[in-house]
């Protein structure tokens, strides 16, 4: 199949960017979107044009590196799919496809479609962990976890930190990411000790990075390649208010 691509090109964070138009020729409908871009890049290189810079690593939907907004939807908008898993059969012959980077102040563009997501790392550093002595693997069932909690924790732990939630959100809010990271710890016994501290520290870091505020439109959930539920955001809102109340009252 043949497509016309309108791709965001930007030399670095400081330079202004603009859209360039390229033709994608003879693309197999079995190809993934990234493979299609590989083909286009081969062609650009042969013409002496700088190839389109984009990120990818696992190409099987688990690392969360690939990131681009395709025709207005992060990862192209197929349910539960990252760009690397997005097949070309979803596109029509001759379609014009617009490709943009994630747009958010805390995700500055590094080059073309690549953005710097270290603001997410700093949210994790602020509290998205548990403080324990590491050692040998504990015995299975040494610490009983109710099945339902284990499931909810695992659902949250599916978050690959790709940033599609921020990209899809009208407010560039990082709350689905942050709440998933809080949720996978707060459903488990190991996560309880630092639960309040974690909620306060992560939300404050999120805010100081310049992410926006959730307006409960649930675009993040619809865009999430791991289909993480906004129920985790509700739970985080509750945890944060409780933690703040405890802090105000001086509860030790």
């Amino acid at each position, binding site marked *: 199949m043949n497509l016309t691509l309108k791709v965001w090109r930007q030399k670095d964070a400081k330079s202004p960017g603009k859209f360039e138009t390229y033709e994608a020729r003879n693309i197999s409908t079995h190809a993934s979107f990234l493979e299609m871009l590989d083909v286009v890049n081969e062609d650009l290189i042969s013409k002496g044009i700088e190839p389109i810079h984009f990120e990818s690593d696992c190409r099987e939907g688990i690392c969360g590196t690939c990131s681009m907004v395709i025709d207005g939807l992060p990862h192209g908008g197929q349910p539960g799919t990252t760009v690397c898993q997005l097949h070309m059969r979803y596109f029509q012959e001759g379609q014009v496809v617009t490709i943009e980077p994630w747009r958010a*102040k805390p995700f500055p563009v590094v080059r073309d479609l690549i953005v710097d997501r270290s603001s997410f790392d700093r949210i994790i550093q602020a509290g998205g962990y548990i403080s324990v002595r590491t050692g040998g693997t504990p015995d299975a069932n040494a610490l009983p976890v109710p099945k339902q909690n284990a499931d909810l924790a695992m659902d949250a732990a599916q978050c690959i930190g790709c940033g599609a939630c921020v990209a899809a959100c009208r*407010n560039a809010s990082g709350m689905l990411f942050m709440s998933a990271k809080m949720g996978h710890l707060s459903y488990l016994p190991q996560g309880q000790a630092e639960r309040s501290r974690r909620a306060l520290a992560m939300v404050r870091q999120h805010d100081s990075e310049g992410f926006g505020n959730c307006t409960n439109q649930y675009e993040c959930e619809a865009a999430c390649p791991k289909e993480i539920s906004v129920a985790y955001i509700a739970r985080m809102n509750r945890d944060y208010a409780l933690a703040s109340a405890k802090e105000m009252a001086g509860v030790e």
Partner: protein
Amino acid sequence: MSTAAAAAPSRPNPLAAFYASTIGKKWIVALTGLGLIGFVIGHLLGNLQIFLPPDYINTYAKKLKDLGPLLWIIRFGLLGIFVLHVVNTIQLRQRSAAARPEAYAVERKKAASKASLTMIISGLILLAFIVFHLLHFTLTVIPTKDIHVLDPLGRHDVYRMVVGGFQNPLVSIFYLISMGLLCMHISHGFQSVFQTIGLRTRRLSGPLNLLSNGLGWFLFLGNAAIVLAILFGLVK
């Protein structure tokens, strides 16, 4: 060095930190929004007495006026709630706008409702409406037919004032549009409150959406019924 000043780490005041945070502000928007919804429901139920003989609504109005100092406490309470709601929503919108300095060339939505995307617009027009409404029927400074007549018992004839007010088609249309916007604001806002305060679960999301839309329509139809009944001379 062991002076007290050097030893004390500078920790943010917890209340100030909560108020400054995105989630803290959103909690305030939700709780004040819920308070405003309560008021709007009570206000409508009181006003539906326009469909009863004039004595009912005039007695009701007199009772409210006779609350004296309590009435002022309620009024200032409402004003406080309202100001907190408006100030915090505007601040949040500004922060969110700053978080997306460069717009997308192509934007598509999968989940967001029209109502949710226009909260700030419906809100700001409601603000203008509420100022007008207070000038119209509370401060009675907008020239209106029968605005200051007394009823046979010598009380302010609120019934005649309301009927006189809505016999003006321009005023009525402005009220109808505003009530449409209130309907939209609340159809998103009510279920949103439960998400913000952490009570919206996966199981409750469906029923809450239904309730939220129902509440929006109830407020629209109830208020519009008053305006339309007067405009078309069914209540006179």
